């Protein structure tokens, strides 16, 4: 049995209180970092650990930090991406609700590493409990000298602020999040310049996911070799998997990176509902292309999933069984992306609108021959041509559904009805 690291306090009563966190060795990593390491050494340590971002893209965290210019001048910012909008994902909420100090300690150590004095935690607006718990925890940490000026007797100065989102999936995209933090409509920004050079208020900014930051104190405490020893070397570490959908034991599981999808779904999450067979699994939130049952041996890490034509994304594992119509799933997913498109670029805004119209038609049994070619044409027009990755995620997902479950689409068109009804 894998010993939980990130979730170790989650089921402890009052896990969200400072006292509980301290009992479990809380804020020792911050003490150690401030006492024993220079900021550059922390960056090195995180680089060596091969920690890759848990927000979706899997970018090496230490490398991202090292892009922040060393020179003094403009203030530097740390932003924590707690927007968690990817359907099928709920890991960050659970960390913030049940073990907020773990994140605050992660923020403090990371801010020390990159030279930031201010962090904004961008929490989606619906997460009211998480916001309250985080606010309480920040206040407690501040009172106890883990935040503020002269932290733990050092000359490190650091404050965390919560920025509450207001309901827009696109705010999870890091540059859109910066726009939102600056009080603008959340639309992605052009890159370059990259946020590490000119991000929030045009200052150097690092954006990391909640889970990514939560890993940092553990790396400081236990070393980079320990971290790299868990799972595949190029994509290592303990990992939170959010399992939901048509499965016996939905929930949040902490397991090593690289565990097979089949093992996760069938053993840990209890397999399909009684009398049902798994048809497909979405491995990383709805932006990740669906994987048919036959391919469930794939390892749950960035590289293996990419090789299998999907992605780890946010590790939102959605299980779909044989009672469910894939056309309906595809339609619902494209409706989601259409609803959440920020509206900035043509292919995403207009292309998804068109795609939704075609899919709804097919689902309603009003599709025509040529509609699948039209969908493929639309995917081609959207994929790779949108401003940010939202449109890509939509097109990739639809392509995978068309590829693996084409017969279901064809049946809808030929029978002029949904065969599942």
């Amino acid at each position, binding site marked *: 049995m894998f010993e939980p690291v990130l979730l170790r306090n989650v089921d402890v009563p009052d896990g969200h209180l400072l006292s509980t966190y301290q009992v479990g060795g809380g804020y020792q990593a911050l003490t150690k970092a401030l006492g024993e390491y220079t900021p550059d050494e922390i960056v090195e340590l995180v680089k060596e650990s091969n920690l890759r971002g848990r927000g979706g893209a899997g970018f090496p965290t230490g490398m991202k930090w090292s892009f922040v210019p060393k020179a003094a001048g403009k*203030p530097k910012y740390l932003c924590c991406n707690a927007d*968690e*909008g*990817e*359907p*099928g*994902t*709920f890991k*960050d*909420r659970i960390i913030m609700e049940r073990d907020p100090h773990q994140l605050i300690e992660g923020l403090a150590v990371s801010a020390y590493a990159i030279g930031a004095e201010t962090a904004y935690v961008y929490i*989606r*607006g*619906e*997460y*009211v*409990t998480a916001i309250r718990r985080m606010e309480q925890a920040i206040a407690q940490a501040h009172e106890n000298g883990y935040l503020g000026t002269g932290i733990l007797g050092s000359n490190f100065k650091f404050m965390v*602020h919560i*920025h*509450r*989102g*207001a*309901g*827009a*999936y696109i705010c999870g995209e890091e540059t859109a999040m910066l726009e*939102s*933090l*600056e*009080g*603008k*409509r*959340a639309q992605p920004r052009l890159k370059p310049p990259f946020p590490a050079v000119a991000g929030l*208020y045009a200052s150097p900014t690092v954006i990391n996911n909640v889970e990514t930051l939560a890993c940092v104190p553990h790396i400081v405490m236990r070393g980079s070799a320990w971290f790299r020893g868990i799972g595949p070397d190029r994509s290592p570490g303990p990992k939170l998997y*959010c*399992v*939901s*959908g*048509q499965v016996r034991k*939905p*929930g*949040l599981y902490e397991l090593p990176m690289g565990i097979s999808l089949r093992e996760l779904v069938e053993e840990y999450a209890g397999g399909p509902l009684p009398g049902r067979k798994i048809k497909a699994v*979405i491995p990383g939130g*709805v932006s990740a292309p669906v994987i048919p049952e036959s391919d469930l041996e794939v390892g749950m890490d960035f590289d293996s999933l990419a090789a299998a034509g999907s992605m780890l994304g946010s590790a*939102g594992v*959605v*299980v*779909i069984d044989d009672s*469910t119509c894939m056309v*309906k*799933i595809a339609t*619902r*997913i494209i409706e*989601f992306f259409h*609803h*959440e498109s920020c509206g900035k670029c043509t292919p995403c805004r207009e292309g998804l609108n068109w795609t939704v119209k075609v899919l709804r038609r097919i689902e309603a049994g009003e599709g025509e021959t040529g509609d699948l070619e039209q969908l493929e044409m639309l995917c081609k027009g959207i994929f790779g041509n949108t401003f940010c990755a939202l449109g890509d995620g939509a097109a990739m997902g639809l392509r995978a559904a068309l590829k693996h479950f084409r017969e279901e689409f064809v049946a809808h068109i030929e029978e002029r009805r949904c065969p599942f009804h």
Partner: protein
Amino acid sequence: MTMREEIEAAAARYPDRRSAIMPALMIAQKEHGHLPGPVLEDVAEILGVERVWVYELVTFYTLFHTEPIGRFHLQLCDNVSCMLCGSEALLKHLETTLRIKKGETTADGVFTLSTVECLGACEMAPVMQVGDDYHGNLDNARLDALLESFRAAERVASVERAHPPSPGE
């Protein structure tokens, strides 16, 4: 704290007052229930920012309402995980019980029914958010019980609204 003071406190967290438009709108919405034009003008005025910036945000983000909504906003998730766990049937049940369609408010102004995108609580799908709280693992019976508890709370609140406690009490 007055609304102005709360907004000022929020603004102090940022180097640029424009950043405080979102928190200010949250504060104003809590105060007024929704965000009509004059409230938006107030927010712009307090922060000293362009009015159209405030207007842009209030329309971009789904948690802000420019129109009044029911006292209990039932926000049922209909994204994939919840759909796989039966949220469609729940929506039908709510629509029949409340005799409104999604997007509508009951005539007594108590309930507004909406479907929303993934609430980030798929482990307890199907889920519904009402006010600040999440309610998970829903079925028709649980929904009925929830609605009853909201109605009861509303009865208490309406009595209080009719007879506000005197300052001396």
